């Protein structure tokens, strides 16, 4: 049995999460995965953006950096390149990672830098009060889509596979042991590993879309574990729109694996080619080589 508390900064409690939010389950799975990998707390860095999910890193007793909105993959790139021996994970949300930070996410995936990215996907902006996000299903009600979301959502896993991530998975928060094992596999993977973690936001998404409280939303995930969005799509988000979009099925599990050179290693293999540089290599300190 893992001592989860041993990985938490209890002096930072209480946390910011609402009752019924599944993000805490995801955090537990992450801690279990870190422990299962046998990683020391000193060699793990969690880098987060802005939002409910991102606030969690402050509660974890590893090296933690709460960055700016959407930019965690770029901060994490600098940390990983300067500390290649560390295990670096990016904690983000659907708005943080796919809207404002979409550019950084796809380029981190393209570089195949050895980061594990957990995207807590609750289909809405929670911290700012329930606005529509890039994974909000079409037709769903949010505070900025009171008549139903007119936009189509991202399939984050397809996006990441297309961008070049070499480990892509989707797991729902209700199946915590599965999630922990997939996160452990992602941490072990050498390259950019992405997990679309289906979480919930009963306070905003659930309330606006008749999704119920936290337990109901988790049960909905469980009933539709191979089609997470189906239950949400069939809830007829907007009464006066007669034709709700056909239920989109989002597969779960490890969806894609590939083997490509990892960026932090490739970066260190760069050698100056004779005659290509205008700057002569500086002399080494201490006069090494003299005599």
């Amino acid at each position, binding site marked *: 049995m893992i001592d989860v508390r041993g990985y938490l900064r209890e002096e*930072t409690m209480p946390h910011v999460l609402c009752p019924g939010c599944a993000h805490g389950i995801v955090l537990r799975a992450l801690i279990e995965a870190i422990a299962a990998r046998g990683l020391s707390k000193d060699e793990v860095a969690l880098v987060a953006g802005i939002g409910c999910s991102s606030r969690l890193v402050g509660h974890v007793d590893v090296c933690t950096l709460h960055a700016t909105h959407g930019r965690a993959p770029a901060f994490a790139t600098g940390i990983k390149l300067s*500390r290649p021996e560390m295990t670096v994970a990016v904690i983000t949300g659907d708005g943080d990672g796919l809207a404002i930070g979409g550019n950084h996410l796809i380029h981190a995936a393209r570089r195949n830098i050895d980061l594990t990215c957990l995207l807590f996907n609750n289909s809405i902006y929670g911290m700012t009060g329930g606005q529509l996000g890039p994974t909000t299903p079409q037709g769903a009600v949010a505070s900025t889509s009171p008549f139903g979301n007119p936009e189509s959502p991202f399939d984050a896993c397809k996006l990441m596979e297309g961008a070049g991530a070499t480990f892509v998975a989707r797991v729902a928060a209700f199946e915590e042991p599965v999630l922990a094992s997939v996160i452990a596999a992602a941490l072990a993977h050498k390259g950019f590993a992405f997990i679309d973690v289906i979480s919930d936001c009963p306070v905003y998404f659930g309330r606006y879309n008749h999704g119920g409280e936290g337990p109901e939303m988790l049960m909905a995930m469980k009933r539709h574990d191979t089609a997470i969005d189906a239950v949400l799509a069939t809830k007829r988000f907007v009464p006066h729109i007669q034709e709700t979009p056909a239920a989109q099925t989002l597969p779960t599990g490890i969806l894609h694996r590939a083997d490509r050179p990892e960026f932090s290693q490739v970066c260190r293999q760069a050698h*100056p080619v004779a005659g290509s*540089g205008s700057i002569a290599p*500086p002399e080494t300190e201490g006069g090494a080589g003299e005599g």
Partner: protein
Amino acid sequence: MGEPQLLQGNSACALGAIAAGCRFYAGYPISPSSEVAEEMARALPAVGGLFVQMEDEIASLAAAIGASVGGMKAMTGTSGPGFSLMQEHIGYAAMAEVPCVVVDVMRGGPSTGLPTSPSQGDVMQARWGTHGDHPIIVLAPASVREIHDLTIRAFNLAERFRTPVIVVYDEVLGHVRERVILPETVDVVDRRRPTVPPERYAPYAADDDGVAPLMPFGEGYRFHMTGLVHDERGYPTNDSAAADALIRRLHGKIDEHLAEVEDVERTLLDDAEVAVFAYGIVAAAARDAIGMARDRGIRAGLLRPITLWPFPEGAVAETAARVRSLVVAELNMGQMVREVRAAAASGNAELVGLFRADGEAITPQAILERIESLVPVMGGAS
């Protein structure tokens, strides 16, 4: 001393950075600063450093901050439009107190403006571009050699005060080649490390000078960093007393050490009746102009801020109290002149501006004409 070499301003920046111990550069292509990135891409592998071209300037400074948190001295370089994008993380570095250096090779603006023309239009953005009250150090070199030296100084100040430091110079200085002899050894400052064991380390518990020791990630000291207002442990707080203490300390750590930060050049000011206030490339023109003025019998001098921010109020006030006229020459529509006017208010000097923002340089002749217009015709001047 080393051998003389014909060196471009942007190359001098890269060489200075490496001499200062910079081992990480993240950047995004933009004129007229791209040569800094290109030189770093070529040079860093040979000294065990890393270069990465990021997806934009926001990410570039983010990656540099990340590398600095990992313990590497890190920088990025850019020009106007990219500098706008970097403002977000200049604020983060100031708030989270992460040493880093940003070089802004100024081009004509606003927006994409004049991409390959000189300007000094970013000097106020360098001070106030990111939101919120924050300290900043901005250095303004006026020659290729000084770009090299002030880039080193920028790293030293960043490490000394755990703060972002910005180096600004214009397109002409970035691209001009000058004969320089670089020093073989330079003074290098490294960040202060904690003397307490990990369990007692608080990343924002400052020493008496207001600067908190900083450990990199991955060396046994686990801690939290955030751009939110935080307590000494780095944990977010909404407590107004904690916010007050933090913001005042951030300002105080620099404001209370102005003697370490401020630097001005005073040329021929002792007997001057007219002083020119100019920085960067304009100061080079002003130096010629005061020489020509002296040839004509006009006692002219130059006050050149090398540290633009914090603004050298004392030096300006002292000069304004002694001269009859003060010419403020800038490659913009008049930005630093506001600071000069405020600092000179206690003196009696007449203040005259010479501004241009059309992508062309301010010539020595233009400055000379302005000086001459301020001085009553003196018979027999030769």
